[in-house]
């Protein structure tokens, strides 16, 4: 097995015999296989694939791709074929294309630069009229883990989230998670998309978007409120995998939003809508009303119940755990039958279900008692299944059924699987301690088993008997004697140790035998296991205290042996015991108490189920199975003591959960849930944070302006901006704004209001202790700068903040835009000074076009400088990142590693701005900027220079 692993990583160009090649190819391989067989090394084999990929014949290409996929499937490295494969990404043949997709997703991460070549194909496919093509383009685009395309992905996701086809929207929901794992900083934007998709009414989308929700923002419970009832109602029609995810999420949701139904005075009747007030004893904080189940809580329980009949075991388990965690105690038992039904499924399913039943059965014996026989062990069960069944049987044991269970256990003890027999003995021990009536019967049975031929069985018996005797040692001296006799034959260390401990502990009951046993073990002391040695020491010490006349010399002898033992635990113990029991002048205080220390009566051990504390985990989860917190596990919260506002789930009233205190321009309109969808969306775009607005409308804008063709750049197409962490600038300080603090940043998104404007996002925070009202933009200047104002904020709560977006047409100059920010009472003059890089929109073009355009923008329009570049930016990525962080430019593919090219247009006039960085030797680089706007060009050059020369 390990040889496989070795060969896996070193596969690269290693010599792989050509014979294997024939086997690797698929059976459909026709003529080409024979030809390929002629080549003798791996290198040449791939050469041959390359030739096939570059040929004109579709069938040859397909054949090659099939063989490449075969290589990938085997875990062999086929990355060097990347350039040849990626060329076929635009193929018309769907199967070929799909295989290329498979390849791309596998290797794009390793070959990021080349992977970028394929991006434009996907962008085109995203607009294809065929929904399958749109969806698969988005799937592949989002699966290519290349950080540089994050903004393109973002844009594509936003667009797909509003696609007409639910299938494409589903794919968008999947893409959200992919983008999030690639770049967690996109979280806020993704949450907006999730919020939008949560409102989707298609059953196809529901499961996927909830999955995205769970992965990206599981704590944003507030997003669920409005969709809660819809999700409950759609649930039955959602595809089975989605059901699992939604049910798990709703379980968490319900635990935060509803009151506990587990109260004494609770009313559960589904139809008793009217509360009846009877004498109420329990006084909890605020409410003294008897418990009434929230109708929404009931809705969830009612709508999940039919899913217990699902053929999908995961769905059944999900419903079962939902009932376990949410339903009133007396309703939980309806899941029992379904869970027992799952035990007829595959072995692995049984394993998980039995684990969950084991946890449940500790708390609720009654649920599974009628199904006791379903947990009987069969000789053909797998070991882990047997153990779990045994566990459950033990949990279910009561005075009434114990005789049946014990009879069953008797057959298990005789099992050929000795490990299982030993586990059964432990189970008997647990039954015996739990049910005091049968302790004696069990003990007798176990004593009989001591004469078993198998040592593991006997050893286990001894250990269990030891534990049982501790609970009632008085009348069992004969058993102790019997066990003392066994010492000669038993070799299992744990069992020997147990016997020695027993004799030591009850040495006064067997005064004749004990010294003899000590004599025997003293003889074999040196060859015993450590744990036996320790118990020998204990026995010696105890006997020395009770019967020193007979055992003094023996104890001395054993203590001497222990003093020179190899194990330091034993040496320590020896030293300790000697000081304690052998009186000498130095040991004063403690040795008086030696007898009380060593012969103190010890509490009997409690035999507990291994599943005792498993209920701290949500049932059905991986964490529960492992009994350890798995990464990404979401705690199930405790029931709230005071019921949260129920009205948040009313779809008509649009308000956030009060606890979050998030302000929002609210307009209460009484629409019914069913027809609110569309309007809601539009409204939100206008009123809520501006970035969400860019999702659909902006992208249309963008594509129209791209194809609309400004004269200067017919050859280029607009590109979505590369993501850089937004730099926030202060607009108004809290002190000068009388509590209102405002900061702004450039989100680098196409402005929704006008294509000549730069979009700016303002974040307003109220630092006062009173709400601010009617915040709006007042007078603006200077002339030549146009401002699109944000909608008036009616109210901003204390400590709350809100983000709004506005558009400013700077007219391609770095002149500041001044305007007034007004509240109901005050006016503040503020100004936004744009960085030159924010006045640009990224574009992309081919290398040839770039060179052509650059050729036209020489002389006056070109400015250049040679700079010393920071050593860490000599590779391609840092240069790109640095340029992009300063200026909103698009990356132009370059055939040379040392040259980086970037292109953009000015936002206002659409003039082309080109920039190139030519890395030279000795960490110098030549920086060139070409643009008609010479002022802008020189400012940009200066900024790029500072950025690139920094370390």
């Amino acid at each position, binding site marked *: 097995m390990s040889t496989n*692993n070795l060969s896996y990583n070193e596969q690269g160009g290693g010599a792989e015999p050509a014979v294997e090649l024939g086997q690797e190819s698929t059976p459909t391989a026709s003529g080409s296989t024979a030809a390929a067989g002629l080549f003798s090394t791996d290198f040449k084999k791939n050469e041959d694939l390359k030739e096939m990929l570059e040929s004109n014949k579709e069938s040859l290409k397909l054949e090659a791709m099939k063989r490449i996929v075969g290589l990938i499937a085997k875990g062999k490295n086929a990355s060097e074929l990347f350039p040849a494969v990626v060329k076929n990404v635009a193929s018309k043949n769907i199967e070929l294309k799909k295989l290329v997709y498979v390849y791309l997703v596998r290797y794009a991460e390793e070959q990021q630069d080349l992977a970028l070549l394929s991006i434009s194909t996907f962008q085109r496919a995203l607009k294809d009229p065929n929904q399958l093509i749109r969806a698969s383009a988005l799937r592949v685009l*989002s699966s290519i883990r290349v950080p540089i395309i994050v903004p393109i992905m973002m844009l594509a996701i936003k667009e797909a989230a509003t696609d007409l086809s639910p*299938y494409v929207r589903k794919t968008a929901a999947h893409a959200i998670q992919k983008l999030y794992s690639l770049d967690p900083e996109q979280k806020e934007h993704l949450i907006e998309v999730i919020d939008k998709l949560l409102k989707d009414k298609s059953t196809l989308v529901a499961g996927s978007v909830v999955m995205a929700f769970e992965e990206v923002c599981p704590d944003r419970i507030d997003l669920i409120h409005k969709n809660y009832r819809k999700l409950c109602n759609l649930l039955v029609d959602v595809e089975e995998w989605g059901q699992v995810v939604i049910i798990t999420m709703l379980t968490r949701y319900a635990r935060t939003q509803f009151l506990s139904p587990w109260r004494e005075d609770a009313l559960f009747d589904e139809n008793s809508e009217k509360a009846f007030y009877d004498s109420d004893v329990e006084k909890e904080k605020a409410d003294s009303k008897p418990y009434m189940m929230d109708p929404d809580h009931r809705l969830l329980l009612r709508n999940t119940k039919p899913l217990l009949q699902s053929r999908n075991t*995961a769905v059944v388990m999900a419903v079962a755990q939902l009932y376990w965690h949410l339903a009133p105690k007396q309703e939980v038992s309806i899941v029992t039958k379904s869970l027992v039904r799952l035990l007829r499924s*595959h072995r692995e*399913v049984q394993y998980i279900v039995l684990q969950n039943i084991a946890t449940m059965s500790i708390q609720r014996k009654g649920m599974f008692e009628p199904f006791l026989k379903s947990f009987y062990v069969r000789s053909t069960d797998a070991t882990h299944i047997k153990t779990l069944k045994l566990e459950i049987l033990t949990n279910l044991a009561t005075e009434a059924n114990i005789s049946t269970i014990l009879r069953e256990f008797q057959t298990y003890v005789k099992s050929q699987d000795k490990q299982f027999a030993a586990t059964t003995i432990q189970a008997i021990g647990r039954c015996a301690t739990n049910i005091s009536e049968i302790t004696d019967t069990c003990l007798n049975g176990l004593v009989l088993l001591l004469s078993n031929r198998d040592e593991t069985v006997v050893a286990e018996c001894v250990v269990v008997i030891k534990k049982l005797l501790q609970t009632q040692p008085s009348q069992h001296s004969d058993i102790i004697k019997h066990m003392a006799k066994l010492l000669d034959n038993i070799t299992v260390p744990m069992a020997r140790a147990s016997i020695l401990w027993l004799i030591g502990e009850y040495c006064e009951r067997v005064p004749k035998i004990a010294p003899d046993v000590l004599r025997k073990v003293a003889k074999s002391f040196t060859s015993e296991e450590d744990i036996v040695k320790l118990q020998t020491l204990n026995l010696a010490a105890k006997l020395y205290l009770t019967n020193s006349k007979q055992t003094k010399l023996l104890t001395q002898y054993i203590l001497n042996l222990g003093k020179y033992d190899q194990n330091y635990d034993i040496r320590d113990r020896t030293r300790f015991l000697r000081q304690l029991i052998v009186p000498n002048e130095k040991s004063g205080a403690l040795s008086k108490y030696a007898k009380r220390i060593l012969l103190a009566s010890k509490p009997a051990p409690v035999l507990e189920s291994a599943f005792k504390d498993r209920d701290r985990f949500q049932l059905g989860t991986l964490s529960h199975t492992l009994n350890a917190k798995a990464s990404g596990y979401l705690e199930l919260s405790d029931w709230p003591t005071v019921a949260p506002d129920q009205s948040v789930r009313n779809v008509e009233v649009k308000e956030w959960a009060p606890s979050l205190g998030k302000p929002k321009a609210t307009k209460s309109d009484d629409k019914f849930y069913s027809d609110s969808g569309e309007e809601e969306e539009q409204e939100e775009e206008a009123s809520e944070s501006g970035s969400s607005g860019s999702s659909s409308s902006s992208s249309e804008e963008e594509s129209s302006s791209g194809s609309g063709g400004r004269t200067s750049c017919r050859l280029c197409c607009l590109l979505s901006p590369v993501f850089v962490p937004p730099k926030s600038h202060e607009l108004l300080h809290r002190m000068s704004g009388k509590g209102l603090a405002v900061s702004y940043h450039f989100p680098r998104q196409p402005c929704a209001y006008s294509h000549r404007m730069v979009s700016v996002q303002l974040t307003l925070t109220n630092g006062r202790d009173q709400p601010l009202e009617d915040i709006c933009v007042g007078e603006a200047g200077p002339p030549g700068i146009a401002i699109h104002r944000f909608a008036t904020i009616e109210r901003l709560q204390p400590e709350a903040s809100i983000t709004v977006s506005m558009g400013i047409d700077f007219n391609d100059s770095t002149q500041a835009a001044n305007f007034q920010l007004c509240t109901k009472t005050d006016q503040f003059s503020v100004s936004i000074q744009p960085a030159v890089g924010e006045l640009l929109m990224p574009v992309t073009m081919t290398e040839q076009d770039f060179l052509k355009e650059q050729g036209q923008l020489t002389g006056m329009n070109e400015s250049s400088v040679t700079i010393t570049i920071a050593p860490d930016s000599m590779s391609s990525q840092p240069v790109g990142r640095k340029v992009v962080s300063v200026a909103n430019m698009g990356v132009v593919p370059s055939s040379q590693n040392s040259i980086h090219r970037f292109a953009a247009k000015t936002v206002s006039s659409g003039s082309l701005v080109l920039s190139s960085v030519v890395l030279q030797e000795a960490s110098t680089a030549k920086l060139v900027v070409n643009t008609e706007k010479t002022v802008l060009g020189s400012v940009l050059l200066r900024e790029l220079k500072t950025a690139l020369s920094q370390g």
Partner: protein
Amino acid sequence: MIHSLFLVSTAGHIFLEKHWKSVISRSVCDYLFEAQGKASAPENVPPVIATPHHYLISVYRDRIFFVAVIQTEVPPLFVIEFLHRVAETFQDYFGECSEASIKDNVVIVYELLEEMLDNGFPLATEANILKEMIKPPTILRSVVNTITGGSSNVGGTLPTGQLSNIPWRRTGVKYTNNEAYFDVVEEIDAILDKSGTVVFAEIQGVIDACVKLSGMPDLTLSFVNPRLLDDVSFHPCVRFKRWEAERVLSFIPPDGNFRLMSYHVNAQNLVAIPVYVKQNVSFFETGSSGRLDITVGPKQTMGKTIEDVVITVHMPKVVLNANLTTNQGTSTYDPVTKVLVWDIGKLNQQKVPNLKGSLSLQSGAPRPDENPTLNIDLRIQQLAISGLKVNRLNMFGEKYKPFKGVKYVTKAGKFQVRT
């Protein structure tokens, strides 16, 4: 959710890997191999294994480990159920799910896996949808592909089922012979003790359907005695509300083979055990030998013949060989796996099959203290042991007259006799 999938043969050879997120080295399977080393049989490998950075959830079937690698919390059953669905899809596509068939069809396997999961979340798992996107291999198509140089195996449009409310059925199905067959298959799970008394017995049943009907038929299947059914689970096509209200199965069926429902028969009804078994297996204290004597006969068969009776015994390890004679069928003892198989065939009233002879034990070894359990396999045609009967099948929505058929079979499930 599911990060990567590895298919591993029992011998520990990783013959397929697929990653839905970034690549995970196949060395992660070493943890599985370690667990396999500890377990006495592949069945005993725990389905969930935690490793320092990942969790392995595996299912073992058809001598293949399907190992899913996951990184974050996920309901384990979700993964297990999905892996079984993958195996079933392979079975459906290639006729068998084996290392050889997967290796032979690696491209189709890859295309399937690509469609079944997106970013580790199930996308399309319905056989009907998958078959529209990726055509199963047939001899005819592979011949045509070889001659013409390959027409595409992959559909270019989104399967209609994917968008509809009935994703399990494709539109435009056409047959010349419209037929619908239903197989009611019941299994008896039982444990009998030494003396032949029933320790535990229950009946599980399934209704498997093979429906080849044109258009969009809407079927209703009703039973004579639906009260027998205690606990049921349905294919998603069955309308649960109708079942709740009227106890009839109303559904628009998928095209082809599918499992319509599985059920459990009410526990109050006593289970009729169709056979009796008399056995005497004993090992002598001295002389390292033993004796075996098994007799099987029919009992409570409601006039039907019991067929395909096979008795399997897992002998203790010390049994070296068996020297047995029988008056019906054949018996074989495999000294390596210690399994005795007695293939009896039909049981008839006149002659009672019997197997007896001696067992030779390893000399010097202690006498095994447990007698082996007998596992019994049998089949009764034309009988549902619970007495369940289909009343009628009606079709709405289409005009033609379909050919309908219902078949009943009773089999032994986990039928064990303790000795």
